[in-house]
């Protein structure tokens, strides 16, 4: 009865958490970088230049339309082959998730900045603020309240989507789970445990996003 029932979880907890570490590494690193690159991308999306507008629009839509799995495959298989460089699954995953995160984060930033009232901006201009000062003192502090809840929910989406990285050979928590199942045939308990892990990672974030949104709405 060593490896049956709920014991299978406790006996393999080390290896499962090791996979979880990889999952979190990819999600957290990508999200962290995306927060900054997304800001830049959001500002670019607000450009009045038509070419910049079109290019940024295509970039965003490319990540919305083409499944993340396809992006992962392209980066892991085709790009190393064409460019002659070898990259690990983890690096490919972080690159793809960061590119995706940049697109989505940019859209959140753009939405937040555009939703600010024109009056706030004109009031800022009318006291002589420069564009940079206007951004630092008025637009950013007001927009951040609308950005953070969106960024958190992007975080939960990203954590969930990391489950795809198993397809390019990254040993994440799902891959580890599968290994344990193959060995022990305890699919119910292992998948149940994975379910619980993802729930524990995402649900608190989800609650936090909702709370912040409500708090800052007033």
């Amino acid at each position, binding site marked *: 009865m060593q490896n049956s029932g709920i014991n299978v979880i406790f006996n393999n907890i080390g290896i499962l958490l090791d996979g979880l570490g990889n999952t979190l590494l990819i999600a957290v690193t990508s999200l962290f970088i995306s927060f900054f690159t997304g800001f830049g991308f959001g500002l670019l999306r607000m450009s009045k230049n038509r070419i910049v507008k079109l290019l940024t629009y295509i970039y965003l839509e490319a990540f919305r339309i083409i499944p993340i799995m396809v992006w992962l495959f392209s980066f892991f298989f085709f790009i190393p082959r064409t460019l002659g460089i070898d990259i690990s699954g983890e690096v490919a995953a972080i690159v793809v998730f960061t590119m995706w995160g940049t697109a989505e984060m940019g859209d959140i930033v753009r939405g937040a900045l555009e939703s600010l009232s024109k009056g706030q901006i*004109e*009031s*800022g*201009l009318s*006291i*002589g*603020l*420069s564009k940079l*000062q206007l951004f630092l003192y*008025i637009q950013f502090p007001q927009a951040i309240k609308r950005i953070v809840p969106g960024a958190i929910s992007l975080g939960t989406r990203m954590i969930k989507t990391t489950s795809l990285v198993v397809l390019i050979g990254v040993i994440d928590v799902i891959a580890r789970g599968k290994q344990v199942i193959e060995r022990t045939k305890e699919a119910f308990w292992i998948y149940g445990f994975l379910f619980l892990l993802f729930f524990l990672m995402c649900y608190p974030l989800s609650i936090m996003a909702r709370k912040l949104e409500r708090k800052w709405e007033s």
Partner: protein
Amino acid sequence: MNNEEIVLEIKDLYKGFGERNVLNGLDFTLHKGEVVVIIGPSGCGKSTLLRCINGLEKIDGGDVILEGSSIYDKNIKMRQVRQKVGIVFQSYDLFSHMTVMENILLGPLKVQKRDKQEVSELARELLKKVGLSDRENDYPRQLSGGQKQRIAIVRSLCMNPDIVLFDEVTAALDPEMVREVLDVILDLAKQGLTMIIVTHEMHFARAVSDRILFMDHGKIVEEGEPEDLFGNPKTERAKQFLNKFDY
């Protein structure tokens, strides 16, 4: 009054939005210490005129000359112009994430780089004048419309502007709050602040102004001292307009 130094000259000003011409070759001159009230039907271009003077709209023709130089001159920075010409809007947009005091100090400290001590003292003095001394740490959401508008006026005054523009500042207020705001403006007029005021409050216009401009279709149709223009308007358009305010 006309012997005083000229602070602002509007010359043959044109401004359109798409097909529609809002300002059609408008001219006028403002002297130091003068209070000019602009009246006229909705959509006649009053607000647009103020926004052009503050550089919030790009003009299509003509010029705005502030203290001898065009505000559209390439060597003049709009930021400098805006420090000299304050504007108070109808929508009293205080910065919602800042306290009253932070709202007032932002421009003087960050734009003008003035001494915090000096500006804070000035701010407190002005807050006292508008009757809101006890509100300096409040956030805008804790204030009524009339209070917010009085703070917006203080915020503008703290920049030590040469001219202050008032764009229908009581139009969005509850009727019982109009008075408290108009009293503040009336007080400023007595102190000799140079102002251009756009308003629909005719009694106030009469009381506060040195000169009234009646605008229609993007032009000044008639101008004169308040008693003349209200008592005995010369143009048919002005007569018609003023009649609407009599019951």
